[in-house]
């Protein structure tokens, strides 16, 4: 008989086990997450003979419970008795690999892949490989899709006869009836190719690749594009032309825009995989076509890749290719009908200037930048402005400033507050690149105008913008340009503007330093403690708390403390509260 001590230690485990079948999902989930504790208490023997059979049949549960279970089982090797018994984990994971929920299945496959490494080569052939075969020839496509992810982990570690079987199974799945399975096979094709011997890549994988790339369903074909990248890296250069390129060319001109989109999206990877020679002969024209595609989604994806593509061109004739082939297409895209295409281009086009050098940038790219700065779509303008640093390095920003200013002003006054917010965020960057003089001359008024914007988020962003500017230009600059204006707002008839003064002071005090804070800001704050609006008064209390650390102790004692004490006896409850907070 176990004594009282034994019961005590048993109790929490007993609760956990009982909660495995509690009606509350949350409790079940908790219990599953502590499965290792349960297994530890049961010992390896009972875990294998009792717990695992029970878990194998719990696939009726909620997805989140199953997901947690699938994850747990991946780390269970030691709890069932080490690598020797790791195969006991296969049945529950097998049943999880057939559920309909994709995330659960994927997690089960992930765990299976993990524990496959812990199988000895013999166990792998005796236990793991039959499981893969069972899944691959299952009745329902859920199990067959799961099988696709398991071939590559067991292939390298089995005997050559089993290898041949695995290849055969993979072939069968690639021509499965259901598009789901073909998609799963197509997405694992590259991975599988990597573990195969080169001769089999040529004899097995290439025909499969070609077949999948000309599948009747475009959702399958587009996955073959991804596989193309990994297959191309595996093959020696001389085979690429005959084995991969026909399929790739076909994909770039596919009837379905989704496949072409995929090619555009993977273009940089493809470019790296096939090497400079093929890039020059094949990919350049293909890329030109994608940039001129009739579907806007494809053009946008290709436009996104313009910079990367140009960067990766072979250096010897990079400039010539860009100037004669790519740039004409880019010029057209600048005036595209679709704003997504234009904004995709605007986010990368500035990067071309570093590749092309100063003269070309001034002659060819600058007009494009200027056009985009005047674009009707604010996103395009924003993307240009946010990447100004690239141009700044090459030609200096002065070339642009004439056009830049109207663009910034227009964005600053855009009717949409999110656009205004975006441009505020670029202000410190712009200020840094344009220099103090230009900023004082042109942009300072804008920054001050935002302080009295009717949207709080803008006022807030304007405040933190000021802080960043002061950090950049220094306290002296702040004292001359910003501080007087900010403090002037303390007398504004609108209490919201008066409060903005306080917020600015909160933000600026640290950057401005003790002297400015004590001499200029503090008197204003203290004066505002007599404001008739309670919101302003309690913000005074908050401000005083905030700027306290910056002030010297003398000012704190003689000036701040009396004011706070006065506020602490205010008639308004909130003012009292915040004043007391500040005093303590």
């Amino acid at each position, binding site marked *: 008989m176990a004594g009282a001590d034994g019961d005590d230690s048993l109790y929490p485990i007993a609760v956990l086990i009982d909660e495995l079948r509690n009606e509350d999902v949350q409790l079940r989930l908790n219990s599953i997450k502590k499965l290792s504790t349960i297994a530890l208490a049961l010992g390896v023997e009972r875990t294998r003979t009792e717990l695992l059979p029970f878990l194998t*049949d719990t696939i009726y549960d909620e997805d989140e419970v199953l997901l947690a279970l699938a994850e747990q089982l991946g780390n269970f090797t030691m709890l069932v008795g080490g690598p020797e018994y790791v195969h006991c984990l296969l049945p529950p994971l097998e049943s999880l690999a057939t559920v309909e929920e994709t995330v659960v299945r994927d997690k089960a496959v992930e765990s299976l892949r993990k524990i496959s490494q812990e199988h000895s080569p013999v166990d792998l052939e005796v236990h793991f490989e039959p499981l893969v075969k069972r899944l691959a020839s299952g009745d329902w496509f859920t199990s067959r899709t799961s099988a696709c992810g398991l071939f590559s982990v067991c292939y390298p570690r089995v005997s050559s006869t089993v290898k041949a079987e695995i290849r055969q199974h993979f072939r069968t799945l690639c021509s499965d009836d259901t598009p789901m399975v073909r998609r799963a096979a197509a997405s694992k094709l590259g991975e599988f190719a990597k573990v195969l011997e080169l001769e089999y890549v040529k004899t097995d994988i290439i025909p499969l690749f070609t077949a999948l790339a000309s599948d009747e369903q475009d959702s399958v074909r587009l996955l073959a594009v991804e596989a193309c990248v990994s297959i191309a890296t595996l093959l020696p250069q001389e085979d690429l032309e005959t084995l991969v390129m026909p399929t790739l060319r076909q994909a770039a001109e596919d009837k379905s825009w989704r496949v072409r989109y995929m090619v555009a999206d993977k273009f940089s990877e493809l470019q790296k995989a096939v090497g400079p020679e093929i890039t020059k002969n094949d990919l350049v024209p293909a890329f030109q076509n994608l940039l001129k595609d009739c579907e806007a989604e494809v053009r946008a994806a290709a436009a996104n890749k313009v910079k990367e593509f140009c960067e990766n061109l072979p250096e010897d004739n990079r400039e010539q290719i860009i100037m004669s082939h790519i740039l004409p297409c880019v010029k057209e895209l600048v005036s595209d009908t679709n704003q997504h295409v234009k904004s995709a281009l605007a986010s990368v086009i500035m990067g071309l200037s570093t590749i092309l050098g100063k003269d070309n940038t001034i002659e060819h790219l600058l007009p494009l930048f200027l056009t985009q700065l005047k674009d009707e779509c604010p996103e395009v303008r924003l993307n240009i402005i946010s990447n100004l640093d690239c141009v700044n390095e090459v030609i200096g920003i002065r070339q642009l400033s004439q056009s830049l200013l109207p663009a910034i002003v227009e964005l600053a006054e855009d009717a949409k507050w999110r656009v205004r917010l975006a441009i505020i965020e670029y202000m410190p960057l712009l200020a840094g690149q344009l220099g103090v003089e230009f900023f004082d001359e042109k942009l300072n008024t804008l920054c001050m105008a935002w302080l009295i914007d009717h949207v709080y988020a803008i006022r807030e962003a304007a405040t933190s913008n000021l802080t960043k500017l002061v950090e950049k230009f220094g306290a002296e600059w702040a004292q001359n340009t910003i501080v007087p204006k900010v403090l002037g707002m303390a007398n504004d008839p609108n209490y919201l503007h008066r409060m903005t003064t306080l917020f600015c002071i909160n933000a600026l005090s640290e950057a401005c330093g003790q002297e400015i804070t004590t001499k200029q800001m503090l008197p204003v704050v203290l004066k505002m403690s007599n404001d008739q609006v309670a919101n302003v008064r309690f913000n005074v209390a908050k401000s005083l708390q905030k700027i306290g650390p910056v002030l010297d102790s003398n000012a704190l004692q003689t000036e701040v403390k009396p004011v706070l004490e006065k506020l602490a006896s205010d008639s308004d409850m909130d003012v009292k509260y915040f004043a007391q907070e500040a005093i303590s």
Partner: protein
Amino acid sequence: MVYGGVHLILPAQDAPRCAPVLRRRRRAAAWTLCWPASPPSPPPPPICHHHHAAQPSRGLPPSPLMGEDTDATLTLNHHGFLPDHNYVTEVVLGVAPLLLKGVQTDSRTPPLLHHLSMFTSVLLLTPPPLYPIDPPSQPEALSDSKVPEELRPSCPPLSTLESSPRMLSPIQVLCSDITTLSLEPEPFASYTEGLFSILFFPKADIISTVEFNHTGELLATGDKGGRVVIFQREPESKSEPFSQGEYNVYSTFQSHEPEFDYLKSLEIEEKINKIRWLPQQNAAHFLLSTNDKTIKLWKVSERDKRPEGYNLKDEEGRIKDIATVTSLQVPVLKPMDLMVEVSPRRVFANAHTYHVNSISVNSDYETYMSADDLRINLWHLDITDRSFSLFLSDIVDIKPANMEDLTEVITAAEFHPLHCNLFVYSSSKGTLRLCDMREAALCDKHSKLFEEPEDPSARSFFSEIISSVSDVKFSHSGRYLLTRDYLTAKVWDLNMESKPLETYQIRVFVHVCCEPEPLSDAAVSHCKTLFHVHDYLRSKLCSLYENDCIFDKFECAWNGSDSVIMTGAYNNFFRMFDRHTKRDVTLEASRESSKPRAVLKPRRVCAAGGKRRKDDISVDSLDFTKKILHTAWHPNENIIAIAATNNLYIFQDKLNSEMH
């Protein structure tokens, strides 16, 4: 995955642009709108004892969303009724005297609301979803297994083809009819059955969609009360040849609840507009069901094991004494009676401003589309917070302010059964458009337009209404399209856009008007008749317009080999056309004429004054309230399911051979 087009960020509601336009049958909609289908918690005391073994208790674990629905129901009782109170008054006054006997009056409530609340309380007492199929209580659904051999109806005579070209016999009539109910918990028991049936009929039991799954083993129906009932075909057994293929209730669940859209002050009724089965992916079955706004994905699965053994309590839930717990026990799974579980898997909401009229699952197994009056959305089955508009009628973006200028709405849409990139949608102007998703992300340019040139001489006020396509179906081969408009069913060849391949007259209501079918011969001499015909047609259409029948949306169906088409009509008649022999037949689905296992007799409708054969029905005696709008054909066999208001009829080909 790559999709393009217009991205809808879903939680953002579309601006409340317009009232529930585009639904001309507003009155009729208001009628059903008002009835909460199932009571808010707590569930009503069961008055119906017909609980089928396979029917799960109504205590399905409700999704969080369904919980919200329940709240909406409660609100609906107070807000929901008000906008259309004139009409409701009409209803309520009709029954109010009855109700007043049973319920205490509260003087503070305004009379109308009071009636309504009483009305609701009556509804609370109505039985939960019922297709009560318990054999003994349902004579029509008599299970042969319980009948001694000699009492069983003998095999119907193998009548000759002449007398019965379509030998269909009902194998079952499944229904939820008031007359078979006993009303046991008593509050209103003093009323006669007849009076109750007035109350009962317009309610939630009217079947609004019927759909076989891909193997035909399961049949799902949806009704106006937001319920889905799934029937399963019993396996054939050699010992009882007659019971083969009987469909019995497999599971019943509440799919949608009435809701109230506060932004637009719109009631969203719970009526199931469409059900579509997903291709089977594992042992469980999945189906999509939709009401006007929200599409839900359901999982229907079986469970035959349950865990047993607790550490700290026994199976009845009594807590064990801790001192007796000396070792840990892991639960063990024991076999149990088969239980069918239905659980909500996904809810696809907030993507439709107008009423969803169709959903269709793509052959790529991962996407489906939903169409409303002006928009077609593409969804990924795993993703509920994003959808992609494949098609947007111009008007949605260009002239939202002026809905009067709307000339055309989408009436139905379907994916090609084999090619994942093709879909077709039909319009209220009678046209069909075929779109190829490969060409562009937004399919606002069609690849093919199927349209029949209008005959200018036949033009009338009604021509646009009657040419509106109410349903479109791809044939199983994917080669043909079947469409239904008010007076005809048409078969189109995908390769011929100029005119339909075949046109079949439905003769919905008048035999005579369609009699001179070959209009071309001796046109002059027929001129007078023709004039007559059109005249008669026009007057008939006038009355159908007035009683809103002209807006009825009849569905149509192909048989498994695409050789026969079927569609519904009035007076519980449905029509079948053989495409090869060009023969057609009218059959009736009624409880009187279709006894189980009897062979259906063809029916004829004759003109008012014309010669009548025995059994012919005069055109004037047709009942326009009995309409068969929803029909479905088993994917491989000659089994059809016909929804006639609140009854579901399942007929089977007696000869077990092809229909022709």
